[in-house]
């Protein structure tokens, strides 16, 4: 857990760097000629020009457009975990589709193969999952920025199997000595679970159409088909289960945005306050 926490913090730190990257703008080169004004002496007084107030209209605000499309990518956390954790293999594809200015349809599909080695149990969980739901972007972007700070919901469903590799008998009174680890190899097939997730996430455009983001998830089990004489201590997509029905999740994604169409943003009409008497 300590390692998870440490890597979590380092990822947060990494994320903050990408934010800085995202905020960077190329400096506008100023024309050196315009700055040299001292030596220019007007030869003649400036001619009178008729002021036409209507001509000023050409610097009106350009019409802002929002891009709509599909964002697809994958979870780097699951992918890279296989490199340092030999007991874990997993992949998660993520995607979302912009429905309206603020709402996105979002989904994740994944597959996991995890061996959990606890003090008293060693078991392998294999299975796939799908999560579908929406994200609400609560971040008001400036200009043409497309960053997202979102909160959303998912409904997750997973089918999987568990294999109990070995176990120990708990005996509070080991008068005859501690019982050694008992190998098992028993397999529990056809298990399933579903849950609801509350997702808080951030996505930042790093360049062009590439986004990086991370999300934190709080899960609550809805259904859980438990094996006989064992328990779903790990559920693909849901992660570790606790005594209650809550769980937590996390992902770190890199996504590519495929624009499909653009929509003009209607200028916000500020209604004049009507004075009440």
């Amino acid at each position, binding site marked *: *857990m300590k390692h*998870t926490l440490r890597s979590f913090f380092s990822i947060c730190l990494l994320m903050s760097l990408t934010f800085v990257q995202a905020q960077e703008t190329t400096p506008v080169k100023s024309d050196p000629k315009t700055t040299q004004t001292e030596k220019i002496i007007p030869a003649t007084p400036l001619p009178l020009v008729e002021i036409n107030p209507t001509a000023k209209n050409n610097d009106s605000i350009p019409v802002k457009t929002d891009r709509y499309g599909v964002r697809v990518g994958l979870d780097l956390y699951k992918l890279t975990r296989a490199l340092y954790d030999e007991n874990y293999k997993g992949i998660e594809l993520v995607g979302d589709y912009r429905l309206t200015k603020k709402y996105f349809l979002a989904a994740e599909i994944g597959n996991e193969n995890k061996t959990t080695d606890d003090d*008293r149990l060693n078991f392998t969980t294999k299975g796939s999952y799908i999560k579908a739901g929406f994200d609400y972007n609560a971040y008001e972007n400036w200009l043409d920025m497309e960053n997202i700070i979102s*909160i959303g919901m998912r409904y997750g469903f997973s089918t999987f199997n568990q294999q109990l590799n070995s176990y120990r*008998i*708990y*005996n509070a009174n080991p008068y*005859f000595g501690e019982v050694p680890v008992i190998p098992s190899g028993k397999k529990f097939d056809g298990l399933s679970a579903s849950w609801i997730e509350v997702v808080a996430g951030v996505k930042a455009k790093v360049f062009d159409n590439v986004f990086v983001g991370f999300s934190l998830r709080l899960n609550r089990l809805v259904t859980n088909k438990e094996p006989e*004489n064992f*328990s779903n201590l790990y559920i693909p997509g849901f992660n570790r289960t606790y005594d209650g029905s809550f769980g937590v999740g996390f992902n770190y994604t890199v996504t590519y945005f495929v624009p499909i169409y653009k929509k003009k943003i209607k200028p916000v009409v500020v209604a004049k306050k009507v004075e009440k008497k």
Partner: protein
Amino acid sequence: MKNTFLFLLFFAFTFSSCEKDDICDANTPTTPRLVIQFYDFLNPSVLKNVTNLKVVGEGMQEGIVFNTATGNAKYLTNGNAISIPLKTVGTSTSYSLTLNSGNVNPALVNVDNIKFDYTTQELFVSRACGYKTIFTLNPTNPYIHTDAAVADEKWIKFISVEKSNLENENETHIKIFF
């Protein structure tokens, strides 16, 4: 919005630091011991205290510890109930029960042997506790009661099986009348 985010973050960290369920709680019912109560043979409804009873498992050098006293006294009990563990590996456990153990008068020291026969079943408890073993005493011959090598009269007069399914320690499984 910001508050919700912070709230979720707080929750995520709360959960990540919760590793308490990795330790098996002592109150969780796990592998049960055999609970024996002692009764008066002449007055079978009345509990009777044993005197300096020592219980030693077969093949073991030391007896079961019954109290926090020091020296040999910790192996002795003077109560009317004992709880003794059964072997989770195998299907039988033998105990020698010595009454008046350590008494200076060797005529009073009386040893009886009881062998319990049973079948075991392993049940899942939790992540922290793993599995537990529950026992079912053999329905035809739950025990074999013999006298020790020294042929004195058996001090145990009668053994009654109250509960042949040993699932927890909240009930009496065996009654011994003496």
